[in-house]
């Protein structure tokens, strides 16, 4: 996972579910991450795919990624260039998907409330700080048991390391 992510804010509301992030009808027929990226946020925001730039940051309300467990809902955003997701809370399976595939995420109600669409934001994961030209928001680090997975670059590399397959 990168130490610093810098990008523009895409702002969404509460309960953005995985069906609008990556529609269910694609889940068993698209296996290529680049193809997945073409459908990112398809039913949430039709402009997203055309306008997203590498490093951009999704800022959402509570319960981001609720619904289906589909991993593609995290992969499609990472492949589309999303640098990080900031939300008031994440659905538990989506949280796991982010950790597992190495999509940085921050839980912060304060940042979610204050960040505005189009803001350019820097997230420093080591320091636990989100900075905008005018504000700074602190966030706590991930639990230590999970940091190992994040530091390894996701669950599959982490498991390879553990099994001596690296």
């Amino acid at each position, binding site marked *: 996972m990168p130490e610093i992510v810098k990008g523009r804010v895409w702002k969404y509301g*509460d*309960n953005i*579910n995985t*069906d*609008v992030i990556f*529609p*269910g*009808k694609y*889940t*068993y*027929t698209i*296996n290529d991450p680049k193809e997945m990226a073409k459908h990112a946020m*398809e*039913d949430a925001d039709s402009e997203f795919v055309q306008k997203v730039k590498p490093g951009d940051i999704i800022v959402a309300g*509570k*319960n981001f990624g*609720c*619904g*289906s*467990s*589909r*991993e593609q809902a995290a992969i499609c955003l990472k492949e589309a260039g999303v640098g990080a997701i900031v939300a008031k*809370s994440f*659905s*538990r*399976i989506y949280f*796991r*998907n982010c950790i*597992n*595939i190495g999509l940085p995420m921050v839980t912060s109600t304060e940042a979610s409330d204050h960040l505005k669409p189009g803001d350019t934001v820097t997230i420093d994961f080591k320091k636990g700080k989100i900075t905008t030209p005018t504000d700074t928001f602190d966030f706590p680090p991930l*639990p230590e*048991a*999970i940091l190992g997975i994040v530091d390894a670059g*996701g*669950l*599959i590399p982490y*498991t*390879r390391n*553990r*099994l001596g*397959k690296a």
Partner: protein
Amino acid sequence: MGLTFAEKLLALKAGKSKTVPGEIVEVTPDVCMTHDNTAYIAQTFKKIGVEKVRDPSIHVVTLDHCVPAANEKFANNHREARAFAAEQGITLYDIDMGICHQVLPEMGWALPGTLVVGADSHSTTYGAYGAFGTGITRSEAAVIMATGKIWLRVPESMQIYLKGRFQAGVTSKDFMLHLAREIGVDGALYRSIEFCGPVVDEMSLASRVVMPNLAVEIGAKNGYIRADHITDTWLKGRARKDYTKVEPEPDARYTETLTFDVSELPPMVSGPHNVDAAKPAREFAGKKIQQAFLGSCCNNRLEDIAVAAQVLKGKRIHPGVRMICIPASRETLLAALKEGYVQTLIEAGAVFLNPGCGPCMGNHEGVLADGDVCISASNRNFLGRMGNPKAEIYLASPRTVAASAIAGEIVDFRDI
């Protein structure tokens, strides 16, 4: 201080005497379920660099999400899943068997006191049988194949206590839609829910199943119902091995206990596009529908089909409505045939399809047209869920779905 079900069960599976909420434990699941996503998971498994699945006996594959295959992509996906299961010696239930969350209990995999994880969010369903059922990700299923283990965070626990007596025809589905409205779709986020009280004790297993199934729709990690004589009777002759029940301790500590008296609860309907957009059915009355769906892992067991048959017996569904019935499993279908329910429904104008997930997530068998309104006995009404973001989905009980199919519009079944 006693342990809740989640604290006790996860301690057991982690080889510890106790656990506390927030703790992260590494556990060995008893069962790991994957479905049409198995082909993708197999590819991920191979990236780990392990040749053989560590313990094939804990894995089970159920092809159900698009069966029979709708096109060559789905067909190739199934082919890969079958080849992987055969290569690794993993049990696979093919397209004849039904929905994973019904097939696993029927075939005796989901047992009281077991940890059943599934690469499907509705794996919470297994809690209806006294198991700890929870959804995991595709990568995690691949890692369990390689290592036999997964990390889980011990959840905070809450109790949902049901008392009183349902009005005639009102069910656990109506209650769960009401609960979603009361606490919101993140009202139980990260939590373990224990459903209890006299109303739960008296429920049939098919009615109980709806509650842990919908628990994930309010954010829960798992939903649990204590296994009792009803569970034991149902599991007799099905259980693949002996089981030891795990129950919460009497002095367990809960984040909160919510008590509901269900006596005044009306039939509920959840409007688009969130499960918590629920209101009494009468408040949606008059909303024209074009499709009625009796299916999904939530509500399409024999009891549900019996209700629909009772409502539709000797009647015709509205000419403007397509009604699609998809039983939960082969066993359900055989029983519905024997009871004459299939004939009743077809005579009433319904389309009866083979067991599986059907149009629930928009793959096939009843994808909606632009502007369509569908009343559904399923568990998700998200925008685009049934394959078309220009359609609307309303969630309801099987009785409300059947009554609305006759009326051609959403109704409170007590009004017809």
